[in-house]
């Protein structure tokens, strides 16, 4: 009774592309994953910068040069968008987990809210950074 039988179960293929038209819901979900992973770059740079500030003025100058270069600015603007987008994606997870917003029209609206919301929050962040 208690033995588990070895069964051949179907494995789901990678759907997007060959079998699946890209949709608001699937693409906005994949972006939560990509932003979550990409954030490690900005966090790593920031911790290196913090460590340099704790160690010495020379080290700070070196790392701060990267941080304030155009590449550094690109990383930070990208990270600002990524963190806001991922945060809103997390909020959407909490909404879905509560069993709400799962019908297609609402789910699509939530996806657009993440896109628009993250851009608005990024602009606000840039304004706060540069006033």
């Amino acid at each position, binding site marked *: 009774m*208690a033995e588990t039988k070895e069964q051949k179960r179907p494995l789901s293929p990678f759907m997007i592309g060959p079998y699946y038209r890209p949709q608001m819901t699937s693409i906005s979900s994949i972006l939560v994953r990509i932003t979550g992973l990409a*954030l490690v770059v900005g*966090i*790593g740079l920031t*911790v290196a910068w913090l460590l340099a*500030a*704790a160690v010495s003025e020379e080290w700070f100058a070196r790392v701060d040069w990267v941080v304030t270069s155009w590449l550094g600015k690109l990383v930070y603007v990208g990270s600002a968008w990524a963190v*806001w987008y991922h945060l809103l994606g*997390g909020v959407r997870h909490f909404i879905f987990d509560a069993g709400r917003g799962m019908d297609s029209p609402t789910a699509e609206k939530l996806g657009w809210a993440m896109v628009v919301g993250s851009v608005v929050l990024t602009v606000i962040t840039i304004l*706060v950074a540069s006033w």
Partner: protein
Amino acid sequence: MRYLTTRKRAEGLGSARAGTEHHLAMTASGWALLVLVPILVFVLARTIGGSFDEVRATFANPFVAILTALFLVIGMRHFAKGAQTAIEDYAHGATRAALIMVANAAAYLTIAAGLYALIKLAI
């Protein structure tokens, strides 16, 4: 006959060989980050680009230091667990094991380096 319920028999046999633990950990850390991240984003927005002394003064502030420390520990554990899920979706066998180790190592290294810097700036 063994006294094994259907549930007991199925436990731990999901595709990830784990139950709801991962989901709950991501949800709980997600809620914590929902509070910590917006505060730190704005603190950083005001601090990045500042001078050596300004940056040191900001992170010597107890409030900023404690929130940053919380973020490092909670955020990087959240990252490592999240990255593990993503890795398990695309990589298999030894590559999978190696990538998960790399993700965890990156997370712990970031935590250790960040906490060291915060302590040094605090004292």
